[in-house]
């Protein structure tokens, strides 16, 4: 089992497998890791709850309650077969939780009173209002939201990495080439960065490699089996299609 402190070392992200390995009797570092993952990916859940028709207050309440139970007890047995992938597990556990809540209809029990995560629901609400008002199933909203969060995180990683080496400007310029390597205006970019066109091409290629690595690393952190990375990427790709 990896050292719990590995998430503080360099860029190694918090690993879902670490949480899984800790099992039901998770120790403090594993709980902290779970909390960290939840903090990173809570918005898609909020969006899901909103999409199911709850208003802002109820959604915030339910989301917070869900995390409280997830982090304190993690007893969503029904979601066990989904455990290999964080994305699927989170949604399955949330569904389970919502079903439970509906059955009980007692909001008092939620979270045992304590809010384990500090989640900015005001920001979430405004973000929610920016969402397209298209007809979308809650699941789809969740998947799409999840993909966005993941991309944000991975790209922020790369950006931080560049900034740490004093290449923030190069990043800001080169990032435009990321999705369109073939038809990027390298000459203009070279002029912008005051370097040769060849150097820009090399640097753009390097950025793409780093992006690819960062994205895969981020996804790898959310699946138990590293072999699932490609499947998971394909699932996210589908979620963003059409």
């Amino acid at each position, binding site marked *: 089992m*990896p*050292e719990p402190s*590995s998430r503080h*070392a*360099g*860029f*190694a992200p918090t690993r879902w497998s670490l949480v899984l390995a800790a099992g039901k009797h998770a120790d403090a570092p594993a709980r902290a890791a779970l909390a960290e993952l939840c903090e990173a990916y809570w918005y898609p859940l909020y969006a899901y709850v909103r999409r199911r028709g709850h208003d802002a207050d109820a959604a915030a309440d339910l989301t917070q309650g869900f995390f409280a139970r997830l982090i304190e007890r993690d007893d969503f047995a029904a979601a066990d077969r989904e455990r290999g992938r964080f994305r699927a597990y989170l949604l399955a556990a949330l569904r389970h939780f919502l079903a439970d809540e509906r059955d009980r209809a007692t909001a008092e029990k939620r979270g045992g009173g304590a809010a384990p995560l500090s989640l900015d629901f005001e920001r979430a609400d405004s973000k929610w209002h*920016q969402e*397209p008002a298209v007809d979308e199933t809650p699941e789809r909203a969740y998947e799409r939201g999840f*993909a*966005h969060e993941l*991309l*944000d995180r991975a*790209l*922020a990683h*790369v950006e931080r*990495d560049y900034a740490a*080496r*004093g*290449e923030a400007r190069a990043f800001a310029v080169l*990032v*435009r080439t*990321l*999705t*369109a390597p073939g038809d990027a205006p390298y000459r203009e970019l070279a002029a912008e960065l005051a370097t040769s066109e060849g*150097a820009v*091409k*090399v*640097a753009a*290629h*390097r950025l*793409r*490699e*780093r*992006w*690819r*690595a*960062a*994205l*895969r*690393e981020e*996804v*790898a952190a959310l699946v138990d089996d*590293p072999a699932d*990375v*490609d499947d998971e*990427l*394909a699932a*996210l*790709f589908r979620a*963003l*299609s*059409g």
Partner: protein
Amino acid sequence: MTTRTCHRCGTPFEPTRSPHGLCPKCLIGVGMRDADEVEPATERVAPTVAAVAPLFPELDLVELVGQGGMGFVFRARHRELERDVALKLLAREHALEPSFAERFRREARTLARLSHPGIVAIFDSGERGGWFYLVMEFVDGANLRHLMKSTRIEPKQALSIVSQVCAALQYSHDQGVVHRDVKPENVLIDVEGRVKIADFGLARLVDRDLGAFALTGSHQVIGTPHYMAPEQWEKPQSVDHRADIYALGVVFYELLTGEMPLGRFDAPSKRVHIDVRLDEVVLKALEKQPERRYQRASEVQTDLDSIARDETSRAHPVPTPEAATLAWAGVFGLGIVMLALAFALFLIARTHFAERLETRNAWWGAAFGLAAASLLPLISAHGRLARRPDFVAANRSCGFTWIDGGLGLLAAVGGVGLVAALSSRADHPATETLWITSIVIVMCTVLVWLTRQFTSRYHARPSADDAREPSDAKLFAVGLLLFVGLHCLCSAASSTAASAIVSARGEDRGDTWPLAWWRVSVVLGLPCVIIGWHWLKASSRGSAVWTRAGFSGFDFAVLLFVAWASYCAVAATLAPRDGFVFWIYALHAATELPVAAYFAWRRWSSRSRVERVALEPGLVHVVLASLSILACVGGAIAVGVGLIRPTVIAADGSTWLGGGVLALLGGALALDLLRRHLRTEGERPLLAVRERTWLDRAMITAAVLGGALWVGGWAVENTESVSVRFARGVGGCTVAVNAIYNGMRSQRRRKADESERLEDSRTEAG
């Protein structure tokens, strides 16, 4: 809130929501694409010799010899020094980073410090025309990857290569340099077979450049990730030299098996025919946790070298037949002298102390002790003499030596003696002496011959064969033989001592059976112990029986021995405190319990080394299970009868309590068998409806044995005899149990048939 359509994939997206206004789907697409696709060939085109040559006026560039993730390697000749060198240019993309130059200089200085015949030396480094370069020793040969692709690498070669890599790694680790990228591509082998490791520490240079992203992403940059230790994935910034040892383990595994140790991989010996001791080395190097791995590369080397030495000594013995013949002569001569002495003692005992039983027994004991001891040199020959390569080789290669002649002569003498004893009058005083002498001679001949056969056959086989784990049946046979032998020897000693004690206490009832008991014990026990022990040594390398998975055949033998010893203890406790019976049980228990305890202790203390592997149910299990069933049934009857009518079974009550012990042990054995087979049920069900399982076979065997007992019991006239009643009882009960079992089984089968028919008709109807 504007929506844009990505002009690449045509998917609508909102630039305000997506990172940096990029199409999220395309962003993921970049991550999904294969590594090769991401890297357009145009961006890694190697510079031509003509383009590089002007930058290095001191070198004559010959050709581009290699191209990898780190850069390009040219073969060149140093003009002044007139020697071949390798020029490595680091891929230009690394140079874009401002801090790279400084780090490159620092790494190059560290590398220049390493001076070892197993490490590619660095002569020069710097930056010219935008290229960071290293001028290195040129190794005329191939890298291990090429070698593995082009030829089959023998285990012996692999051992030698890995051992050399270990030496080089240990040196660099001592210097505080961790390679971080040990893989076949970086292990060069020159035309003389010397191993040199390249690219020391360069991985760190490039790896750090890319931060943690290099880990799963870019295969070009730091090689395939399969050689990376788990901690290198988890905490890339803080790996130590043990990561190199892991990578070395991967290389070794690949060398031996041709495959990578991925997922739940097999031990190398399961895939190829190699010494099992190599498994331990490979698996220890591949431990997931660095603390459990080899801590130093030199430890790997030490282990490999000792295995290699063993192999060499066996593969290339120095055959000197004279030495071997001499050694045999010494061993054999010693044995003959001792035998002669034993015979003299025996004659003295026979003529002078014929009337005094206990004194005669003591002399006989001494004589047989000597006779047994005469064989000891042969047994120890296996331990010492037979390990000498010359001895082994001579034994194998000399064919018919004079020892064979001597053996033939001995056998002839023994045979003549036996025939003479058979044909002489039974009441003649010399007949008994002739009998015993001839038997001893024949026995010795057979033993010497067996020993010779075994030592030569065993050593003539390739080492991997005898290192293979012995089969369960063989272990049980060996164990049983050994313990029957041990028991008989204990028995002989006990009966001698018991006779002595009894006559000293004036309790001698003039029985003749103690003497018969003693003789049978000796004649049976000696060969059993000798052959059993010899087989144990020869077939299992002494301790392999204890490292076997789970419960081995040998364990059953131990259990039987423990059972017998316990039975003796119980019987001694219950027998009346006078007469031969009490003493012999007591002495038995006293001598055998420590032996049993010793074996049990060895078993217990080695349990941590035992790997869990499910045992296949074999013939041994069938026999054991049926014996267990018999013992259980018999013991239960004995207890029952003993409780209801104590007078019928035995006056002293020892039999029924002994039967209780038997019942318990038999039950425990049967239960254990059941438990273990239930656990491995996945592949072979305990109770299959269709096919015959091992339980059925055990039941059939038990039924046959029980039936024989039952019929035998009826056939005997004497119905008053306890043993006959006992046999009948046991046999009858076993048959009854069988009938019930088979009835239940056929019932199950009928039900299964019916449900299948129903299923079939439903399918047809559907």
